[in-house]
């Protein structure tokens, strides 16, 4: 089947997608994506509150993908080391969707961490953040488990995630973050 780029173009328009990418996440790519999103939001005349929230959450979501790339490469190989992300502007909110492969065993650990975050209310999230910030160990690159707590706090929404087992040991992790505007 031939690729019809016009269909793809229309689809992106219909779904209000501002930017989408599939591939390897490098530091340079992140710099460009952040610059593109910043100027797009500038052109859309977004209030500074919205711009800052979207930018902040985007940084965390994309750096999460970046931080886990080396580990994914080690565990699953180059074939499963590509990720996808999409940023859309809907009527009432911005949507940041990310997807990446993960080992099924690790998916279970991640899922319980995300479920814990979702069980907390605003004040409990704040306390949890401070606890991890103050006592948590710093990973080699400095992540240290704060990213998802921060996304939950700043977006003010429960984390919307899913895991799809695609092979015995291989799962696909999707995250859909909504940011009210």
């Amino acid at each position, binding site marked *: 089947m031939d690729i019809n780029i016009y269909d793809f173009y229309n689809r992106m328009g219909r779904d209000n997608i501002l930017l989408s990418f599939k591939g390897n996440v490098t530091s340079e790519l992140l710099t460009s994506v952040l610059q593109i999103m910043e100027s797009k939001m500038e052109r859309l005349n977004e209030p500074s509150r919205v711009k800052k929230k979207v930018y902040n959450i985007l*940084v965390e979501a994309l750096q999460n993908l970046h931080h886990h790339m080396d580990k994914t490469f080690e565990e699953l190989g180059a074939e499963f080391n590509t990720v996808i992300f999409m940023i859309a502007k809907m009527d009432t909110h911005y949507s940041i969707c990310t997807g990446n492969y993960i080992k099924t065993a690790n998916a279970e650990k991640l899922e319980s961490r995300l479920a814990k975050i979702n069980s907390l209310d605003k004040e409990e999230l*704040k306390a949890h953040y*401070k606890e991890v910030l103050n006592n948590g160990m710093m990973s080699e690159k*400095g992540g240290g488990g*704060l990213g998802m707590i921060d996304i939950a706090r700043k977006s003010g929404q429960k984390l919307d995630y899913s895991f799809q087992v695609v092979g015995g040991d291989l799962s696909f992790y999707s995250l859909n973050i909504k940011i009210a505007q």
Partner: protein
Amino acid sequence: MENLTIEGTPKTPTIKFQPEDGKLLIQGRSIPENSIEFYKPLVDALDGYNGSAAVDIVLEYFNTSSSKCILDVFKKLEKIKSEGNDVEIKWHYEEDDEDMLEAGEDYQAIINIPFKIVEIEE
């Protein structure tokens, strides 16, 4: 001790530390992928410093990886204060930036240093 000056980039803040009068400024964006490496020169400089300190944090954005390093910087300042020096931190945030205000409150609750949260006039 020599002054420490790091020029800002789109992903890292300007850092200015003058041991002579104890002034420290961190200003701009702090969203590097590897923040430990970026903050190391400042953490090292504070390690060898014993004197009063007046600190201004004027950040537009910072990622969670930087948030741990910023706490490390504050912990060094806490130690400097415990050695009998005057230390004060001013955390600046823009009027409508609730997230940056809350981030200041988080640090204020964690560290034991006079900590002022100041609104930037736009």
